[in-house]
């Protein structure tokens, strides 16, 4: 599966797989594995934002952590192609993420950052806002104290925490949820990354501060030319934020297309079910009952057939007999993994 980004893709993910062993006991080899991410491939262009949509537990966050090298993949490759930088201290050209180690990994962290889901837990409660945001600068050895202070104040203004002086030395418990998430965004952006994995940055916020955070992230993406992998379970958020959307189910990407194309013309039965579950503001509109069956299960040693088979309303004998369907381009830039689509 590949996207429309073509040869100049910033991130190329190919056959990415992550299996977590289920411990069978001390000194015993694990017999079962959770297939958290299974053969996922996509491309992401510079400045593009790709939405990764799926239910809880489908492996979205694991994909994000693999991309920022907080976890190592079991199989598959992640290749970054960084544009040649104007200043030193950055990786340039094509880099295989598996080979990034030691000093290079530290430099890599300047270019690839992550915004975490939970603004209440992603900040050390004992450290002030300044310490949290300046941490990437400090561990990367960028600037002296005054430089860091200037840069942190600057980014605080940028994320809308003004006046910066009033926020610099607050502790996380003295901030609201929306303010915390702005601090989390500031921490990810202060070092000037070209790619940011945003792991449900708005899911823990109340609705009123959600739109503020989303428009802030979009504005910063446009201004700073940042590419996002935007992980979310909310199609409405993905529609607002992303150029393209990839729908994930139990570790597999089942459908991927341009945002509007995917929403107007969903081909995979799972995507259709997701779309039919989006609430409508019209009280008179009758909604078809969701036509998928059962619940999301844990992908522990799944059978090789289509992952969606148990819940699929369109399942045929072929779906039961054959392996998980390969991803096919049904329309330009519209990839689906389904035999019946």
């Amino acid at each position: 599966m590949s996207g429309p980004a073509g040869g100049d893709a910033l991130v190329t993910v190919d056959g990415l797989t992550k299996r977590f062993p289920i411990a069978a006991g001390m000194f015993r080899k694990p017999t079962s594995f959770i297939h958290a991410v299974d053969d996922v491939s996509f491309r992401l262009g510079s400045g593009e934002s790709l939405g990764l949509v799926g239910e809880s537990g489908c492996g979205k966050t694991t994909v994000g952590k693999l991309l920022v090298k907080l976890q190592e993949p079991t199989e598959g490759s992640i290749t970054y192609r960084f544009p040649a930088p104007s200043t030193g201290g950055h990786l340039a050209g094509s880099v295989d993420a598996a080979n990034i180690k030691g000093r290079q990994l530290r430099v890599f962290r300047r270019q690839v950052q992550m915004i975490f889901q939970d603004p209440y837990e992603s900040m050390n409660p004992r450290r002030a806002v300044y310490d949290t945001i300046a941490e990437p600068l400090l561990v990367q050895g960028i600037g002296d104290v005054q430089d860091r202070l200037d840069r942190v104040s600057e980014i605080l203004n940028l994320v809308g925490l003004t006046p910066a002086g009033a926020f610099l030395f607050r502790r996380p418990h003295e901030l609201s949820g929306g303010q915390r998430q702005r601090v989390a965004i500031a921490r990810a952006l202060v070092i000037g990354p070209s790619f940011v994995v945003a792991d449900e940055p708005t899911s823990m916020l109340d609705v009123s501060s959600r739109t503020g955070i989303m428009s802030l992230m979009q504005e910063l993406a446009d201004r700073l030319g940042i590419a996002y992998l935007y992980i979310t379970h909310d199609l409405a958020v993905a529609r607002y934020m992303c150029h393209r959307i990839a729908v994930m189910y139990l570790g597999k990407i089942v459908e991927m297309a341009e945002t509007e194309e995917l929403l107007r013309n969903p081909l995979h039965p799972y995507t259709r079910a997701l779309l039919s579950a989006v609430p409508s503001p019209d009280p008179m509109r009758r909604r078809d009952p969701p036509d998928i069956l059962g619940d999301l299960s844990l992908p522990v040693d799944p059978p090789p057939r289509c992952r969606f088979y148990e819940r699929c309303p369109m399942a045929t004998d072929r779906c039961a007999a054959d392996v998980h369907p390969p991803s096919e381009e049904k329309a330009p830039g519209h990839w689906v993994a389904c035999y019946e689509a």
Partner: protein
Amino acid sequence: MIERPPNQPPTAGEGSSLFGDVPEIDLSRGRVDLALVRLRLAWRTLRDGWSIFVESRIGLLSLAIIGVFALMAFSHPLLMATVWTPDVYDPVTGYAFDQFDHPASPTWRHPLGTDSLGRDILSQLLFSARSEFILGITAALVTVGIATTVGAVAAYYGGLVDSLLMRLADLIIALPGISLLIVLSALFSLNLFYLALIIGVLGGFGGTAIILKSQALSIRVKPYIEAARAAGGGHFHVIFVHIIPNLLPLSLLYMMFTVTGAIFAEAVLSFLGLLDIRMSWGIMIHTANVGGYLLGGTEYWWLIVPAGASITLLCSAFYLVGRALDEVVNPRLRRHDG
């Protein structure tokens, strides 16, 4: 790299002046003194903790008791330098010439009487207070220093490192503490400092390390640890900047309990006459015992009660301060019945 946007995203409704107490920085005045701001932050934390601590009456009372003992420890050298002549009042070599019979019951010149060798009990009591503090605090610092590092390292790295350190802790817990100290003090001539070191190392690699490790495990899985890794922070950075500072409140608590344990252990060993130290509360009771006065009931009370009460009071005071600190450190224990 980053330019300022012309239109600021809205901050309305996110309450910016709710906390008037937050140090506000005027960035327009040029250089900001970070050290000063941090000092103010630390002071604020301390003040907040204190306001919770004072709610515990027992904690306050215990702190007062510790304060009294600290005054006693400081008063001994002062008294020796001013009103007490060393040949009469020295806690080890002094002799009360004004009495015919020793042990002598309390008089004005000797408020707590003298022991069987004619030495002033009050002087011994005050002199020993200092040793107990030095012993207790040294042992506590060593324990907590080792236990915090061991706990954080075991929890962070897991695997083999964790197994080795925790099995060592199990081994140390399995050793009977006082019996081991008796054997060690019989083999080597232990002074106060070595005793403090041994107690500190045993506690630091033993039970306290396990408790702090369990706390470190719950810190290790917090997203801010991952965020620090994603920022490029190394193992050293994560352990010493994120895990250990979050362990410190609990460490402080176990420091208090270690002081209790150390003073108690010293009293036991001194009572058995196994330590190479000049004077301590345990030795005072030992002296009374050797002279056969321990069996005399309350007739020679001044030989036993001052030292015994001091051991009990100081041990319980440190323990109870620990319990009161527990409420500061662990918000779930706080009562909200005000």
